[in-house]
């Protein structure tokens, strides 16, 4: 069994494998709570790549991979997966900007009130 050590390498190869043979490729996840181990396997019955871990941080990374595979398998292998990874980043950025604007609005509105100007 081919165990891959680098997560990014594993993700890239698994996506490539799925796009090459979408009919046969399957993504298997095995979780053992008693041992605290997680193993991921992607195979098309000719090639096989695996990733094993006992780290909680890898479970988070696996969630992104799950999203990618769900999107590709439900919609089709030709789907643009940058939507999946890009969406999350895009959602994070405007949320941060909004908070800044609200604070700025509050500051300006308070400053406009005459007796409060003394405070500033």
């Amino acid at each position, binding site marked *: 069994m081919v165990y891959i050590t680098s997560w990014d390498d594993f993700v890239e190869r698994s996506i490539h494998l799925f796009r090459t043979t979408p009919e046969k490729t399957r993504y*298997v996840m095995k979780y053992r709570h008693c041992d605290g181990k997680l193993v991921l396997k992607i195979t098309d019955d000719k090639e096989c790549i695996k990733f094993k871990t006992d780290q909680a941080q890898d*479970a988070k990374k696996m969630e992104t991979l799950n999203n990618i595979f*769900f999107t590709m398998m439900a919609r089709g292998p030709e789907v643009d997966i940058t939507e999946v990874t890009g969406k999350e980043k895009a959602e994070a950025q405007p949320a941060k900007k909004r908070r800044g604007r609200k604070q700025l609005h509050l500051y300006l509105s308070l400053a406009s009130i005459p007796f409060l100007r003394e405070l500033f």
Partner: protein
Amino acid sequence: MVRLQPDPFLNELTSMFERTTEKGSVWVTLKHSSDKSKVQRNKMATAGEEIEYRCLVRATDGKKNISTLVGAKDHQKFQASYATILKARMTALKKRERKDKRKAAEASTASDNKKHKGTKKRSSASKP
């Protein structure tokens, strides 16, 4: 193999995780499938009919098998619920201990520095 609807499948998957806390494993398999045999697919292809593909999700605890098909429309909702279940259930994995790693790294670099200093002293003493 028990074929369920997505929501009962998720409930059954949760109970599988609960049952295997002390002993056993949970396997979850994802596959791109049309749920039709090869013969049917070939017939549909030659007839010019479009084959609808879905995501087949299978789960087992070694004894019981369950499965469900997730289509393109409801995959987002399923994927969100699935992620919630995994986050809640996969608690046995180790948390990243940065402090221990840093201390180990510092200790190893400090011991390397001492070795280098020792060799330098010897070389300077041997020259004159």
